[in-house]
């Protein structure tokens, strides 16, 4: 984004458009020169850099300054002084009592202060103003290509234009989740009609206001991340005749002139507790941040997290905010959800509410930490329920196994039936299949087992035995050895010394 004085636009017939810097030879050369100015000023003062940019400006000053503004963000600019300027000033002004009126007195004051700080007078005088903008040192500059600079400039132009937006209509073909949680986070209001999302804010029905322009500009990256998108915005612009509204339109076909000021896939959290939750990890459950838009009456509800395991999906909402009306709203919304049975609510204990206000059983209070154990208990409940459901389902079915295979991987079979491995194994155990033995997550044919039994005769070393199992693709070798009547004898810590022994029967 740029400061608004650097926004260059063109208007015609009620339309407005930023004057984009197309990737022409001329613009690329200008961009390259500005980058060059920054590069040669590493190690020099910011004042010198500013002067160099100033003298390069010419007629096209807003373009040049816009580029410079973007590049400045890629610089490390800091003071160049061994003595802290604030301390230097304090010492000098204490000595001057805040004022000298002659050159002699001035020199004397500087000398006295320098003596007190045990530094040289000249160094002290230099340090006095080392933190003034012009005297700061350009310490580092992260260069970029002229193409990237122009693209970023163009994106910044659009965002700067959107600061003045009174309303915006967007259409996107994907990336709904990100766009909606950005809308939610940015406090915008929306109405949806025929796939078009119209955005403005609470005050917008009373007056044309730029109040929500910043939020719309911040939404832009999320919109642009959709594959196909378009937007139309009403832009308020001051003209000599007063404020006017202009239409601004943009869509994905112009994507190539824009860079990305944002990083993909970076997850942002509203609170530390949400971050903690995300990082905890729950075995077997895939946690996703703000995963979907759910319907709560006429509102959209985007839960903080979803947790998924074998097709079972539950939602987690963390309520740590402090205003009662926010809480009231939330309770009302959650109670309207179709998915409320699968909601888990984590509520800050300091909030003035009792769990009974929510029409769901899964309400937990937390103080500072996520109640990890309670949540795993809830998850366990879902796991058990899921297992029972699947086992019941499988019992009613004939499980077809590929009889021509010597070894059958059950995870693959489970995937085919859309059930968990655990449930499948449960049912297979019950079925007591005569031709196969269940070893770990695999079914191994008796035929293979017989062959292996033969091969194991005379084998002593554990490693050699493993080699055989490996050759046949059997993973649960310890269990396999046991079922073939062997046990492992460990000598010392080195697995190479381990041997297998036939248990006498």
């Amino acid at each position: 984004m740029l400061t608004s004085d650097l926004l260059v636009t063109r208007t015609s017939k009620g339309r407005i458009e930023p004057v984009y810097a197309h990737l022409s030879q001329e613009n690329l050369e200008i961009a390259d020169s500005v980058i060059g100015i920054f590069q040669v000023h590493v190690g020099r003062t910011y004042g010198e850099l500013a002067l160099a940019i100033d003298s390069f400006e010419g007629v096209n000053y807003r373009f040049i300054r816009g580029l410079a503004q973007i590049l400045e963000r890629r610089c490390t600019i800091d003071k160049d002084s061994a003595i802290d300027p604030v301390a230097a000033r304090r010492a000098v002004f204490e000595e001057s009592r805040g004022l000298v009126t002659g050159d002699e007195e001035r020199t004397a004051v500087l000398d006295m202060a320098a003596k007190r700080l045990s530094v040289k007078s000249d160094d002290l005088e230099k340090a006095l103003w080392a933190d003034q903008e012009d005297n700061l040192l350009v310490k580092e500059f992260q260069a970029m290509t002229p193409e990237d600079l122009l693209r970023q400039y163009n994106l910044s132009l659009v965002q700067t234009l959107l600061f003045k937006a009174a309303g915006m209509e967007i259409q996107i073909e994907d990336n709904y989740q990100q766009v909606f949680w950005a809308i939610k986070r940015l406090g915008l209001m929306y109405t949806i009609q025929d796939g078009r999302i119209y955005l403005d804010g609470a005050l917008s029905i009373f007056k044309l206001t730029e109040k929500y322009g910043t939020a719309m500009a911040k939404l832009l990256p999320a919109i642009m991340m959709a594959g196909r998108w378009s937007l139309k915005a009403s832009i308020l612009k001051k003209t000599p005749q007063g404020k006017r509204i202009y239409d601004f339109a943009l869509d994905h076909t112009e994507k190539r002139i824009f860079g990305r000021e944002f990083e993909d896939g970076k997850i942002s959290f509203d609170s530390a507790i949400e971050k903690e939750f995300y990082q905890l990890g729950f075995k077997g459950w895939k946690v996703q941040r703000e995963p979907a838009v759910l319907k709560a009456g006429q509102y959209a509800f985007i839960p903080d997290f979803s947790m998924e395991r074998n097709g079972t999906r539950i939602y987690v909402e963390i309520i740590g905010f402090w205003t009662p009306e926010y809480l009231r709203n939330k309770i009302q919304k959650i109670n309207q959800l179709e998915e409320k049975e699968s909601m888990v609510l984590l509520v800050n204990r300091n909030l003035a509410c009792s769990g009974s206000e929510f029409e769901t059983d899964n309400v937990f209070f937390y103080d500072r930490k996520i109640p990890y154990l309670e949540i795993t208990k809830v998850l366990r409940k879902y796991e058990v329920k899921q297992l029972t459901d699947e086992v019941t389902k499988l019992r009613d079915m004939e499980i077809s196994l590929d009889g021509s295979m010597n070894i059958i991987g059950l995870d693959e079979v489970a995937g085919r039936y859309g059930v968990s491995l655990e449930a499948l194994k449960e049912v297979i155990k019950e079925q007591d299949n005569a031709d196969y033995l269940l070893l770990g997550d695999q079914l191994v044919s008796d035929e293979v087992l017989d062959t292996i039994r033969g091969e194991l005769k005379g084998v002593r070393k554990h490693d050699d035995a493993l080699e055989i199992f490996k050759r046949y693709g059997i993973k649960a070798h310890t269990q396999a050895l046991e079922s073939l009547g062997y046990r492992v004898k460990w000598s010392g810590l080195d697995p190479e010394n381990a041997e297998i022994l036939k248990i006498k029967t």
Partner: protein
Amino acid sequence: MYPIADAIMKLTFDRGTILAKGNIRVPNSTWDERSKAFRAMALHYKDIIDFLKISSFEFRDHVLNLLPCPELQSSIKLRDYQKQALDAWIANDKLGIIVLPTGSGKTLIGIKAISLLNTPTLVIAPTLDLVDQWRSRLKDELGIEVGILGGGEREIKAITVSTYDSAYIHADRLGNKFGLLIFDEVHHLPAEGFRNIAEMFASPFRLGLTATFEREDGLHTELNRLVGGKVFEKRVVDLVGEHLSPFRLEKIAVELTTDEKEEYDLNRRSFSDYLTRCNLSVRNPADFQKLVMRSGRDPQARNALLARNKAREIAFNSISKMEALSEILKRHDEGRIFIFTEHNKLVHRISREFLIPSITYKTASKERSETLDRFRSGAYRAVVTSRVLDEGIDVPDADVGIILSGTGSERAFIQRLGRILRKKDGKEAVLYEIVSAKTSEVNTARKRKRALSQ
């Protein structure tokens, strides 16, 4: 579904507005298709409630959700004119604006109002210095912890002080949490963005404070709607002597050096030639604004503007001024001196040459308050500053003000004068103005002093 519940109006607060669910259209509201309810700016909360009460409609009011508030008490004794001001405000339904000169104790009136209403209050002030000053005064007088919003802090308490910027950003969340709003330097409020603060807060009681009610753009008329009208006013002349220090004004005209003169004339001519060529004239801020807009597309206009600025810079920053300044500093070898300039560049130059502590808008707040503290204690005898201290900060011990350069703004002039006028026994304040003779600056200086002759 629930026909009976529908008949009862239900009012809630929604992001700086009031949602009214039910069959009655409340005053100042509009049907909002997005929410299927009537919606009004939070500003109209009091009117809506009054209307519903008078019409004896049944309604449920969930709008205000005031922060829990400790008992607020203060033993402040107001001076007679302060008391009159407060009484006038109370008589106007606790709405409206009090206009008093800088240095006459507006902050005290505000604190007294808070303790009288005994309700959670948001004080909004334009600069971080003022926010800080309000916080420490509130803490001292009311003996409570005070919340801060702005400058990186975000702590909401029953009594909170905020910058205008932060109040604007957070209005949609905080608009129903305070019973009383106090706008310090209320002339900032009508600005396009800031007026949203007044509109998005439901607070039924509002107090505006300022030394300079009128705005050059005429937007002060908006204040009626946003805060309530002017309920009390006293000017500098009404209070000088009795409540403020007597003062004299001394103008010093300096000649530009020959080199400066030559360059000044050259640039000035270049500017006026452009105006003549294009048949333009610049008589007021609006004309000037048009010229600035024109410079966006017209390189010649831009060059003309640059030339004008260059000429101003020469006049404002003349070497002769430094000599005159040196003379004044020598003359007041026991004085407590505040120096004002228009540009930071000159601040730095003076600071460097005379080793005078400086404060600009870039000065970190820690060093800034240290410098002011030391000025108050007498450890530093002088401070040089640009526009940043024009408003509100107390420097009661200053008795010499020196304006080295400034705009034609009457407000800035009054504010600067106020910095040195705070009452102290036996003090006679002097305000010097150093102006470059035979330049446009003479005219600029004349404009700003109109404030005194009114």
